[in-house]
């Protein structure tokens, strides 16, 4: 599989890219810090992704870079079978309320610009006759909740966008895989107290890779979160107003 990967430097993206490298997939890394990308490329190369793992600059805050980055990845890989997006940022509701500038950035990165990036990725994949677009949204987008109002809204928008994309292009050979992680122990969440069912990046990555291979449209990871979110979605407003989660 030839994969363009935005977000392979850290967290769940690092774990997923490593699994792909170890089974011999070809990777092209997209990201904002060229020297750091090179370090991840070296790691993935030793793990089996081939002698050279190409890197292409792409910053989620700069939409002008998206289409050229996808084109560059297609050229470097000699085609394209999948695009993975694990890039994103997180901030607590308190931080976002205290800093409107940060809130603006987060909504741009996690929603608006991720959508624009996916538009470019979709074009690239369709030009190859189809492929897989795997994007990390979040369970935070499932219900308006006090601790994740703004972040959750951005992810909710992203989830809906991905759903629509699937409806429109599935017949064209585009497999959209929407990953909804629950709490996963990465540096993104290291300042937070892990709840029950907190997951490890490696286990999530294995689950996501299976979903990519099978074309599963929606993945809750770790899987108990599917049930947890079903319950939370069913809670009446009167209760959501009272509880802290």
């Amino acid at each position, binding site marked *: 599989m030839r994969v363009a990967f935005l977000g392979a430097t*850290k967290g769940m993206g690092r774990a997923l890219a490593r699994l792909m490298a170890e089974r011999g997939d070809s990777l092209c890394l997209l990201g904002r810090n060229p020297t750091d990308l090179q*370090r*991840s490329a*070296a790691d993935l190369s*030793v793990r089996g992704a081939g002698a050279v793992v190409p890197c292409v600059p792409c910053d989620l805050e700069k939409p002008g870079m998206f289409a050229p980055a996808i084109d560059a990845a297609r050229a470097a890989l000699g085609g394209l079978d999948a695009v993975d997006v694990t890039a994103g940022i997180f901030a607590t509701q308190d931080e976002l309320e205290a800093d409107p500038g940060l809130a603006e950035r987060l909504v741009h990165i996690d929603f608006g610009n991720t959508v624009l990036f996916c538009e470019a990725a979709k074009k690239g994949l369709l030009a190859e006759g189809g492929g897989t677009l795997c994007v990390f949204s979040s369970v935070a987008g499932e219900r308006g909740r006090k601790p994740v109002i703004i972040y959750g809204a951005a992810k909710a928008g992203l989830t809906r966008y991905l759903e629509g994309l699937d409806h429109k292009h599935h017949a064209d050979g585009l497999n959209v895989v929407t990953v909804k992680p629950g709490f996963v122990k*990465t*540096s993104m969440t*290291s300042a937070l107290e892990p709840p029950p069912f907190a997951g490890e990046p490696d286990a999530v990555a294995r689950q996501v890779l299976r979903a990519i291979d099978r074309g599963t449209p929606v993945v809750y990871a770790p899987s108990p979160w599917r049930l947890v979110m079903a319950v939370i979605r069913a809670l009446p407003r009167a209760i959501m107003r009272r509880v802290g989660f």
Partner: protein
Amino acid sequence: MVSEDLERVSADVCLSRGLGRSYGDASLPPEDQPNVLNTRLADRILSFDETSGAFRAESGLSLTELNRLLMPRGYFTPVSPGTSIVTLGGMVAADIHGKNQHKDGNFGDHVTSMKMRVADGSVIECSPTQHPDLFRATIGGMGLTGHILEVEFNLRRIPSQWIWQESRRIRDIDEFQDALEDAATEWPYTMGWIDCLARGKSMGRGIMMTGRWAESAEAPPKPPKKGFQPSLRFDWPSWVLNGLTIRLFNELYYRKQWRRKSSGIVSNQSFTYPLDAIHSWNRMYGRRGFTQYQCVLPREAGRSSAKRVLEVLTSRGGASFLCVIKDFGREGLGVLSFPRPGITLALDIAVRDDTQALVDALNEQVLQEGGRIYLAKDSFTRREHFEAMEGQRLDEFRAIRDRWDPQRRFRSAQSVRLLGD
């Protein structure tokens, strides 16, 4: 604190820690500075040259992961401790030794270069030729010279993932030391297990294990399977491991080796990392846990020195479940590296009310023998004992710290206890 980006977050932190496999307080922060940098997410391999074996990675890479990736391709670390659940940073900081110490020295002897964040905030490369004082103080320096960000060393080629192992029953402590000495000339890997409860004539009886890599022709065609991994999910009540059960275990273990000598092919995993097979094995010791005590007795102290130290242990009834004996062949490269030519004893001791007194007594004996203790295993030694054991080496370590970290930005609970800062 945990991050992939050690360079960004290490600026104001007093200590790094890896996987916390040191037994004592070496990787714990001092009380007044509770923030430690956990390196385990900084685990990328940065370069690997298959022909020379030259390898460089971020300091949080674990030996488990390194082995998983590169053993099947025929490479292994030149020196490994008895667990693979350690990071490269921890292996350097403790200058760890393995079953091949008599032949290959410590891990630090194989390190060619390191990237470090030092006290003035700069990030520099150090090696035997670049800032050699910092390099030597960092090897075995227990994190007190700065944050190790990257480690470069040479991997070894191995012919298979299997070990040809021989184990042999040993009658007493004298025979043990002779046997280890003989085996050292012939075997790359040697160590022994002692039944610490055996007294009198059979004091120091046990089993010696020796090994070498199996040639690919002798080895089974398939790589070793990752077998069943039992896990201790709860702390055993403290009465489970008492004098009697330990005695029983040791007796059985000793008798298991019913032939005086046996040999065969075993996986490297079971030869090098016997305890890793039982996840959370330490819970056997109950909630109070246990401590390790490891010392080295110099060759000059003579054959009977090991007996004298074991006598201190047995006379106080310090129930020890595992006692490991191994000969060291040479001094380490680091200013405070633990090994020196002689014999080392590593004792697991269940923590009880009298543990401090036991460790004090052991330390006094070790001091008399001219030996020293291993910081990676220590949590009870008193400062005066440590200073008396280390003497000039400690002066040199302090002088290098004065140069690189005059304000003592790098500190640990252990440095407060043993160095007073």
